[in-house]
C-alpha cells in the first residue's frame, strides 16, 4: 500500500469531502495561499477557490462563531485553529454555543462543524504553543473529540467528522505531520467510538491517545524483550469512547496504564482509568496507572521540556512494576 504523510492524509480527506459535498467549506487564518503554517492545506484554494477556502483576520472567536452560524443554516464548516492553545480564545463559541445548540433546542437545531487543531509538546515552542487541551473539550457534552494517531486515522477520522451532524474537534499531533503511514487509495471512513487494537498482548493493556500510541507501541517493544506481553489500544476518539474494547482487554490482561499528552491531573488518563476501575475492578491485579504530561506549563528549554511528557522508557518501567507487583507507591 502507498504511504503518505499525516499532513497529506488530512489534505486528501478534506479535498475528497469538499468534492463530494458543496456545502463543506474551510475557514481560518492563512488557510488559502499559505495552506497554514504547517502547509497541511496546500493546494486546496487552487482547487476550491477563495469562496470555500476562506482566509480570515486573526479573529478566532469571530470566525468560530460565524462557523457555528453557518452550520446552523445549511453549511458544513471546517474551522482551522492554527494551534490547539488558541482553543482558550474560542471556548464560548465552541462550548456554550456549538456544543449546546442541539440540546437546548430540543433537537431542533444541529451544528455540523469540524474544528481541526493540534496538540503536542517537544517542539520547543514554549507554554502557549505546546499544550494538549483535548480534555477541556472532552468535558463538554455535545462535542465529539477525535485524536488520530497516524496518517491512516487522520484521513478516516477527518472524513467521518465532516459527515457527522454534530460539532467534532479533531486534535492532530503537530509533530507527526511529516510521519508517513500506509493509507489506501480507496475511500474509507473510520467510525467514531471504535478503538483499534494496535498490538495484542496478555500481561498488561497500554491505552494511548494520539502521539502516545507510538509511545505505547515502543514501550510494548521494550517490554517484549523482558518477556512481558503488552496489548496496545488506540481509542481513536475519546468522545465517544469505546469502553467495551478497553474493558475487554483489561479483563484479559488484568493490568492497565493510560497514556495521554494532556496534563495528568483532571485529564483523559484519569477518566479512562476510573472507568476501568469502576467496571473491571474485580479483574484487576494492579492499580490502573495514569501517565500524562507533568502538571506544569510546557517549559521552553529542551533540558526541561523533554522531562514533561511520557516516554517509552518511562511507560515500560511503570509496566514492569505493575506486572511484578511492585507498585508500592500506589499500594
Amino acid at each position, binding site marked *: 500500500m502507498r504511504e503518505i504523510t499525516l499532513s497529506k492524509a488530512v489534505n486528501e480527506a478534506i479535498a475528497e469531502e469538499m468534492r463530494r459535498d458543496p456545502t463543506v467549506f474551510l475557514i481560518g487564518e492563512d488557510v488559502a495561499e499559505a495552506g497554514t503554517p504547517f502547509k497541511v492545506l496546500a493546494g486546496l484554494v487552487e482547487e476550491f477557490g477563495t469562496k470555500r477556502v476562506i482566509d480570515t483576520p486573526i479573529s478566532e472567536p469571530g470566525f468560530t462563531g460565524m462557523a457555528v452560524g453557518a452550520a446552523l443554516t445549511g453549511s458544513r464548516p471546517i474551522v482551522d485553529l492554527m494551534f490547539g492553545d488558541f482553543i482558550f480564545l474560542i471556548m464560548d463559541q465552541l462550548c456554550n454555543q456549538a456544543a449546546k445548540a442541539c440540546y437546548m433546542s430540543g433537537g431542533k437545531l444541529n451544528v455540523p462543524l469540524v474544528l481541526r487543531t493540534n496538540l503536542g509538546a517537544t517542539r520547543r515552542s514554549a507554554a*502557549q504553543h505546546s499544550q494538549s487541551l483535548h480534555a477541556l473539550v472532552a468535558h463538554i457534552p455535545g462535542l465529539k473529540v477525535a485524536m488520530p494517531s497516524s496518517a491512516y486515522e487522520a484521513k478516516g477520522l477527518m472524513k467521518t467528522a465532516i459527515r457527522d451532524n454534530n460539532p467534532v474537534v479533531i486534535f492532530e499531533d503537530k509533530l507527526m505531520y511529516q510521519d508517513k503511514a500506509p493509507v489506501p487509495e480507496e475511500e474509507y471512513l473510520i467510525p467514531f467510538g471504535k478503538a483499534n487494537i494496535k498490538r495484542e498482548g496478555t500481561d498488561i493493556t497500554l491505552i494511548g491517545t494520539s502521539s502516545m500510541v507510538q509511545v505505547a507501541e515502543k514501550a510494548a517493544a521494550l517490554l517484549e524483550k523482558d518477556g512481558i506481553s503488552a496489548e496496545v489500544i488506540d481509542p481513536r476518539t475519546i468522545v465517544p469512547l469505546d469502553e467495551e474494547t478497553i474493558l475487554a482487554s483489561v479483563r484479559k490482561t488484568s493490568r492497565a496504564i493510560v497514556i495521554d499528552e494532556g496534563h495528568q491531573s483532571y485529564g483523559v488518563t484519569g477518566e479512562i482509568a476510573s472507568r476501568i476501575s469502576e467496571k473491571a475492578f474485580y479483574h484487576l491485579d494492579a492499580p490502573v496507572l495514569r501517565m500524562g504530561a507533568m502538571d506544569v506549563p510546557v517549559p*521552553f528549554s529542551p533540558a526541561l521540556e523533554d522531562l514533561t511528557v511520557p516516554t517509552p522508557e518511562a511507560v515500560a518501567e511503570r509496566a514492569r512494576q505493575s506486572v511484578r507487583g511492585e507498585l508500592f507507591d500506589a499500594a
Partner: protein
Amino acid sequence: MAAKAAAKKGTAPKGNAEDYLRMYRQMVRIRAFEDNANQLYLSAKMPGLTHMYSGQEAVAVGICEALTDDDKITSTHRGHGHCVAKGADFKAMFCELLGKEEGYCRGKGGSMHIADQSHGNLGANAIVGGSMGIATGAALSAQLRGTDEVTVCFFGDGATAQGLWYEVMNMAALWKLPVIYACENNGYSEYTKTEEIAAGSLTARAEAFGIEAHKVDGQDVLAVNELTQKLVARARKGEGPFFIELDTYRYHGHHVGDINREYYRAKDEESEWKSTRDPILNFGKWLTEQGVVSEDDLVAINDEIRADAEAAVAYAEAARYPDASEVDMHVYVDSPELDAALSKQSA
C-alpha cells in the same frame, strides 16, 4: 538618561547629541541581536524558532526612549526589539533564546516570552493581542496606585483583528487610563497583506472610542520619539489613552524559517524598503550630515556592538541548562503573608 528625564518634563531632546547617539546605538543593538539570533537559528543552535524585529528598530527605540524604567511595556511574539530598547542585557537574552539557566526566564520562556521586570517589560506574548488586556490593566493599576507611570502596549497590524482590543479601548477611554496603544503596521500578518485583513482605517477605530489617534513614520526614530514624548507627558497628566499607528516593515520572513515568501511578498518590495527606508542607515546619515558624529564613529559603534553581541552569544552557548529539578518550580509562588496570617489564626 537625559532623554528619559527630559521626557518626564515633556521637552523634546532636540540638539542633544547624547540622546541621538543612544538612540542610534540602541537601534544597532537590536539589529545586531537579531542578526546573531538568525545565525543561531540557521546553524541549528537555537531550539524552536523566532520572529525577527529587524527593520522595525525605530519604533521600539523611539518609543522606549521616551519612557522611564518605571513605565511599563507589553510586547509581542516579535519582541526582541522592545526588550532591548527597554534596557535588557544581551547575555540574559541570548541565554533565554538558548533555554539556559541564566536567561531572563531561566530558560522557561524562550524567545516569545522574555520578560524583564527590572526595566518595566511585562513580557512578550505568543498569543496575538494577548497583552492588550494586560497593558490596559497595568495602566489601571498605575492610576489606582496614584503613580504617573505610563504603559505602552505594542502589537502588530494583525492583532487589531482581536476583539479584546475593542473591549479594553472602551474601558481605557472611559476611565482615561495612561496607556498608549502602539500598532506596528509592518504591512503583513503572517503571510497575508494587511489590507486583506483590516477593513477601514485603524486610526478611525481608536477615534470611534474618542481616543486621540496618530499616524507616524515608524522608520524615523526622531519622529517616533518626539510624538511619544508628547503623548507620554500628556498621559502622565491623565489625558490618555492614545493610539499610534507606526508605518514600518519587517525585513525577514514572518519567522526565521519563512524563507520562500515570494508568493506573498515581492523581493523588490523588500529591497526597496531596505535600501531607501532603513531606520539605522537613514538616521546614521542624518547624524553625520548634522555633524553629530563622523562616519568613522558610526563604524566604530557598529563594530563595538557587534563584538558585544558575539561575545554574549558565545557566553550563552557555553552557559548551563537549568537543572532538571527546576521543571516543576515556579508553577506557583509562595504567599508568606498569607501563611503567617493562617498560622496566627490556627494558633
